[in-house]
């Protein structure tokens, strides 16, 4: 295999607040091959969005302390000057956000917002940029793009707005696309359309995709590999089959058990994970998941409370951070 297209090594992100230091990401490492899809899964506050913003260089360097390495196509992004990272944003790497209404500027026509994205990365005349904007809108399935290009964001539906965001992200043919919960703010009926659109466009263009989500359904459809994050840490990392059919971390297991499955033959009760995600200011000692873990009592002594487990490979390519991984090879969620 060639060198991975995106490598994140030992990423740590923390910001000081009035209440204390928020340790948003602790020692994350992962990599994605060119053209593949990695999903980062976790609840809110697990550090997944911060990870994405760290890669994009969107975190304020002054108020955030970041360490580690992010290498994109051989370039160490953290070694670059702010202006060099800026020139990569929107051209080599692009991002789609959760809420398309608040992510588009309410005062500018969508066409102007697209034209701006084109013109900032190259000497393109306004007329040509506009033509590209119309093409891009048509490409993401917006009907009558030559008229819609002059609409304001509030004149479009939620799904159409997210299509505009996708068109804007892809307009300069980026080689890395980060989608940060792109369907969360949309109607359920539209979610599948947007997911499918992203997948199709990714296949067409061969873009590497980093998909950030809390929706395991989306993950199963799109991802090649999955990174499960909890409390700012990667707790499990493997192929989509590893995560779905051979989950080893009690948290991953719990996540799968809490997802409703329409296809299931039996009527099941959903099994939520007890408790709440940890505060990133005051993380639990030892394993960050121990206060909510059902298997803690099965571990000898107070190991889960005193010592943080390390991320170790159970099988090649399948990593888990747990003192007592679940060895059972039953399909996740359907475990009797």
């Amino acid at each position, binding site marked *: 295999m060639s060198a991975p297209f995106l490598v994140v090594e030992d990423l740590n992100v923390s910001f000081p607040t009035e209440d204390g230091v928020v340790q948003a990401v602790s020692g994350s490492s992962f990599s994605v091959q060119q053209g593949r899809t990695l999903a980062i899964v976790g609840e809110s506050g697990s550090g997944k969005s911060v990870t994405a913003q760290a890669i*994009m260089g*969107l975190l304020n360097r002054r108020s955030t302390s970041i360490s580690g390495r992010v290498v994109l196509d051989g370039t160490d992004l953290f070694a670059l000057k702010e*202006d060099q990272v*800026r*020139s*990569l*944003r*929107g*051209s080599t790497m*692009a*991002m789609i*956000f959760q*809420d398309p209404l*608040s*992510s*588009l*500027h*309410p*005062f500018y*026509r969508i066409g102007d917002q697209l034209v*701006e*994205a084109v013109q*900032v*990365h190259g000497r393109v005349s306004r007329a040509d940029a506009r033509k590209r904007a119309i093409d891009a809108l048509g490409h993401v399935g917006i009907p009558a793009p030559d008229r819609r290009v002059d609409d*304001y964001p*509030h*004149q479009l539906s939620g799904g159409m707005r997210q299509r505009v*965001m996708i068109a*804007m*992200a892809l307009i300069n043919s980026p080689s890395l696309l980060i989608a940060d919960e792109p369907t969360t703010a949309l109607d359920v009926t539209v979610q599948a359309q947007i997911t499918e659109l992203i997948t199709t466009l990714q296949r067409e263009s061969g873009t590497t995709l980093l998909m950030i989500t809390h929706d395991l359904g989306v993950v199963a459809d799109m991802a090649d590999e999955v990174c499960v994050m909890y409390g700012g840490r990667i707790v499990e990392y493997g192929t989509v089959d590893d995560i779905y059919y051979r989950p080893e971390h009690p948290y991953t297991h719990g996540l799968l058990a809490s997802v409703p499955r329409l296809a299931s033959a039996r009527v099941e009760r959903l099994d939520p994970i007890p408790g709440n995600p940890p505060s990133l200011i005051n993380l639990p000692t030892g394993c960050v998941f121990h206060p909510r873990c059902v298997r803690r009592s099965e571990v000898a002594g107070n190991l889960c409370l005193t010592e943080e487990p390390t991320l170790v490979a159970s099988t090649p390519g399948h990593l888990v951070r747990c003192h007592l991984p679940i060895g059972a090879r039953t399909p996740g969620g359907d475990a009797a």
Partner: protein
Amino acid sequence: MAGYVVRRVLIMILLLLLLTMAVFFLFSLLPADVARLTCGKICTEQTLALNRARLGLDKSVFEQYWIFLTGLFFGRTFGEGPAAVVCDAPCLGYSFTRNEPVLDLIVDRLPPTIFLAMGAFVLFIIGGVGVGVYSALRRGRWQDKGVMGASLIGYSLPSFFIGLVAIYFIIIRWKLLPFPSYEPPWEDPVGFVQTMILPWVVLAILYAAFYTRLTRSQMLETLNEDYIRTARAKGLPERVVVRKHALRAGLTPIVTAAGLDLAGLLGGAIILETIFSLPGLGSLAVSAVLDPDLSILVGVTLVTATFIIVANLIVDLLYAVIDPRVRLS
């Protein structure tokens, strides 16, 4: 959009009508007897009655209002025979202490007020908004804290204090500028600037303090918006993000305040005009109070309030220019 403008203009006309009513009846409630005020030192019952008839005070208040209103549109005549005084439309009243139509007095006094207002406006908008943006971008650092402290001081100092201190040091102690004496700019441009520069700066400091704080808080709010993150994710340089995306989005309340402040200033900066002896609307109002001459006060009040109402309309129309969501809904 056209319908919206027509509707707003109609509402404005209605408001102006209500305004004339309010001003007229409020002033008619005052205990002052206008006929006696214009009667002179030796006032017999006969001249008093003659005065009353000439001013229309022998009629009911409602009739008086009607005459006042028709005077606004068609002009009116005070008194009869050879002593009659004609006041052409739009007649805001006639000042018998100065023997001039109120409108002429106001028009005479308008240029200094307009120059003062416009000059200060340009200074405090550029200064206030600029410093506010700067302060927001350096939030929490010493530059921001310094600006906020200074603006709090500027905000709380009364204009007569800053004005008098400025006159004392700059004109009297250090003799950097001559004593203020207003000349129209087309007659003595240098003297005009020398006279206006201090009131401009003093007025600008007072208002800039407010705009600095307003702009800063607006910027801090919009800089946190999702579309700012999108703008950065597109790879836009930070100055474009700040100017084109953040400032534009935070502009609405700044435009509102600016419109109303400008209108207020056009109604005369009473204290500063008096301190710097500028023959503007404000000092006209002050001398009308001292004389006292009610007809001038009614006129100045009407003109000032009209500025505010018109400014309000302009601000509302500007909203639609700034924010397409207003225009299209």
